[in-house]
């Protein structure tokens, strides 16, 4: 969903630039609470992973493709503010090094692909976590749901921006239908990739997934309270 130069007029592009700058500023403060010696190296890797996977366009229907945006997967792995910053770095590098996404549209692209997908992805992830069973296995599912929802929301925000400052005179209802139709499909891909990526890390080192910490903390308490009764048996068989 990289917006090129020319789709939105100058005032709208300036406005999205301001919104993006404010959001990144807030994220710079918020990320300090999420980042420590253990998560900081993860953040760089998450950004690199998002860049790599964004190159992998997958087909969605005839003659169309989509790729991961990455805000949701980054938010679940390293936290919403750090995730927002990770995807912003990706989008800046894409615009500056690869001519992907216009320079005048940089603010627009940061808003659509970093701010919206990270914050919406995280919000839906937390909501799904509240509804799903409090198990570590629910974390990748909640992450996938957050990712799935984040993409069509990003598409709707684009339509909103186009309504304000689009350079062509379009029927907004038609544009909404077209954008939603294709981005729901791309959202499915986003959800699957996010499920697999979060699931892989959760399977080997759940403690490295920020979105899993709450579940892990609760589980640790359960294990400690349960261990006092089971310690007397020396046999290796433990019945669940």
């Amino acid at each position: 969903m990289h917006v090129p130069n020319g789709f939105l007029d100058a005032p709208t592009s300036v406005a999205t630039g301001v919104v993006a700058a404010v959001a990144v500023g807030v994220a710079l403060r918020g990320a300090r609470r999420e980042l420590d010696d253990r998560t900081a190296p993860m953040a760089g890797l998450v950004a690199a992973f998002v860049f790599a996977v964004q190159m992998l366009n997958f087909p969605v229907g005839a003659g169309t493709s989509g790729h991961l945006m990455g805000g949701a997967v980054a938010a679940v792995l390293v936290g919403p503010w750090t995730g927002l910053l990770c995807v912003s770095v990706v989008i800046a590098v894409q615009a500056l090094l690869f001519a992907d996404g216009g320079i005048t549209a940089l603010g627009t692209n940061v808003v659509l692909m970093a701010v919206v997908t990270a914050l919406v992805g995280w919000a839906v992830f937390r909501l799904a976590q509240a509804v799903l069973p409090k198990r570590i296995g629910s974390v990748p599912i909640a992450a996938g749901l957050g990712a799935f929802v984040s993409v069509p929301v990003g598409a709707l925000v684009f339509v909103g921006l186009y309504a304000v400052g689009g350079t062509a005179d379009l029927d907004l209802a038609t544009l909404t239908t077209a954008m939603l139709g294709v981005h729901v499909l791309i959202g499915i891909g986003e959800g699957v990739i996010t499920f697999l990526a979060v699931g892989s890390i959760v399977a080997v080192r759940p403690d490295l997934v920020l979105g899993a910490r709450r579940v892990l903390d609760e589980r640790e308490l359960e294990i400690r309270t349960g261990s006092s009764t089971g310690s007397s048996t020396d046999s290796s068989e433990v019945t669940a």
Partner: protein
Amino acid sequence: MSTSTQDRAEGRTGRPDNRAVWGAALLVSLLLAGIVSFYAAGTPDGLTKVSEDQGFAQTETDHELGDSPLADYSARGVDDDRLSVGVAGVVGTLVVLVAGTGLALALRRRSPADQSD
């Protein structure tokens, strides 16, 4: 079902350390950007397709840095298509890794400051 995942994650011998996880994540990213990217779908992405169908694709104007050596994910001067996108992908992944890690390290809480939380 989830118990097996938990057991595996907490088994003292089978649990990979930080460096193993980070190394694996970097390797996967480099393979995806450097090799798998060649096989990515070449059809227009969602927004591009919508702009063509809805008739506003022509409002796109040139990119300011369209002549840059890595523009459109192909390394200038590398004739082989497979190698060209691969080089672009690996360079991009490493640049993002350095920028992202640098930013995160600059922002992180230092361990002694944790108690002020």
